């Protein structure tokens, strides 16, 4: 099963009674099997919208999206999703949120849930309810929930936005490890240029109103990457230049 994503001439318009917002405009993008791609762009340019289309959560758009050789028309476990907000079930504790509809009683699932809980550093909080967690902790639970399903494609919408610098670095490294181990295809939205260079093979720079792809910057650096290296700095200025084409929009970065 190939998990290559093909986004072909995708346009999306939100229509309300009195107005319509043209969010994505004839987008084309190919994400190869096992590739790590990040998407960066100003707030409101349609990054989250694009991820939802890829996930199959919204099928009201023009153009086609192929996952492998199947047209995306509905969500699937094969395409995991980490939302911009944690979206935990408030009535389930941490371990049950991670397990979701998988039976925690099964020894192998129990073990994988426990492993993921230590990966996201939440040991001791297995029985805590979401209301007892901080925003960052909740987000880590959501990350563990997505990883448990071992999806072929993982769609991540600013997954580390709510985390402190330490945890963020830890989880970025963990994500790279998982990527290398499982050959998961990753599509990650971020507003952090460093994060995009640190993680991905290919940085997609988007433009707003309507959302278009402005540039695709391949990052041909070997892993693990060091943020202080000269090559890293160079990529940073390349991406920054691409983004700064519209100086007015650089101010309203998404958080």
């Amino acid at each position, binding site marked *: 099963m190939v998990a290559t994503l093909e986004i072909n001439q995708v346009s999306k318009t939100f229509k309300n009674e009195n107005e319509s917002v043209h969010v994505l405009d004839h987008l084309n993008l190919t994400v190869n099997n096992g590739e790590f791609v990040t998407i960066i762009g100003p707030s409101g340019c349609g990054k989250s919208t694009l991820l939802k289309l890829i996930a*199959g959560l919204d099928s009201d758009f023009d153009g086609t999206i192929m996952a492998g050789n199947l047209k995306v028309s509905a*969500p699937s476990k094969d395409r995991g999703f980490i939302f911009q907000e944690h979206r935990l079930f408030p*009535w*389930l504790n941490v371990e049950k949120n991670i397990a979701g509809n998988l039976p925690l009683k099964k020894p192998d699932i129990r073990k994988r849930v426990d492993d993921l809980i230590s990966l996201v550093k939440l040991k*001791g909080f297995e029985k805590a309810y979401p*209301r007892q967690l901080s925003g960052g902790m909740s987000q880590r639970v959501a990350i563990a929930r997505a990883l448990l399903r071992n999806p072929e494609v993982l769609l991540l919408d600013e997954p580390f936005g709510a985390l402190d610098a330490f945890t963020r670095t830890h989880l970025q490294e963990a994500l790279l490890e998982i990527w290398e181990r499982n050959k998961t295809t990753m599509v990650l939205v971020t507003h952090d240029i460093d994060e995009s260079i640190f993680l991905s093979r290919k940085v997609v720079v988007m433009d707003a109103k309507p959302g278009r792809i402005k540039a695709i910057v391949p990052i041909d650096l070997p892993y693990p990457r060091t943020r202080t290296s000269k090559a890293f700095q160079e990529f940073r200025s390349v991406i920054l230049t691409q983004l700064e084409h519209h100086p007015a929009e650089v101010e309203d970065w998404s958080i």
Partner: protein
Amino acid sequence: MSTQTVAQNKHLVIRETTKQSKLAKSALRGSVLPVVVLIAWQALGSVGILPAQLFSSPLLIVMTFIDLVQSGEMGMHLQISLTRAFLGFALGGFLGLLFGVIVGMQKKSEEYLNPSIQMLRTVPLLAITPLFIMWFGFGELSKVLLIALGAFFPLYLQTFLGLRNVDKKLYDVALILEFSRREQITKLMIPAALPNILLGIRLALSAAWMCLVVAELLGADRGVGFMIQDARSFMQTDVVFVGIIIFALAGKISDSLVRLLENHLLKWQDSFKA
């Protein structure tokens, strides 16, 4: 990590004890007013300011209560009243839940059913009672149906409301995790609607008690309501008071039971932590 757990436990213990002392304090504060009223009532009755015919003294009421229990009369009336209330509540509550789920889950059935149900809801129950008696007689059926009708609406309304307000964002998560249709209902819709459903149960219970009283006052040959009505015609004010107290207690106890259930089932909610 273990220090974290210990710290967390300690925190929980502290919260538990403060919670208990808080509860005790609020119970104490809540009982001040009733106790004062009772003492004043007894005192005013003893010196003869309150007419004994209309206000039996609290002591007399207690004695009458004991008498009624010992003679077995109370048990008989209470049993028949509880049976009616239970049957009516079960029937109306079940139907309310059922229709609430159907209408809450399907847009189409909402369009078909909801306007009619909402219209019926605005009809005062007391206005329907004569019809019920004409249709179903003075027997048990009309009473149980009246109670069922009273219990139906709150549970229907709250279930419907709860299901309608399920967060679309969590629904998306359920789709991503590939919840089956059944899992969507048991693992998303029902837990999300549970706060409303439990509220609906409490409202339905109090409606059921009210309808029970109405039904028994209007025409019955047994039951606590009948006991009150019967005592009234003989000017046995003490028995009337006993009946009223029984209804009040029954309402309070059933409400507390549902609250207990709420505290257990909704412990994940923010508003239930204190």
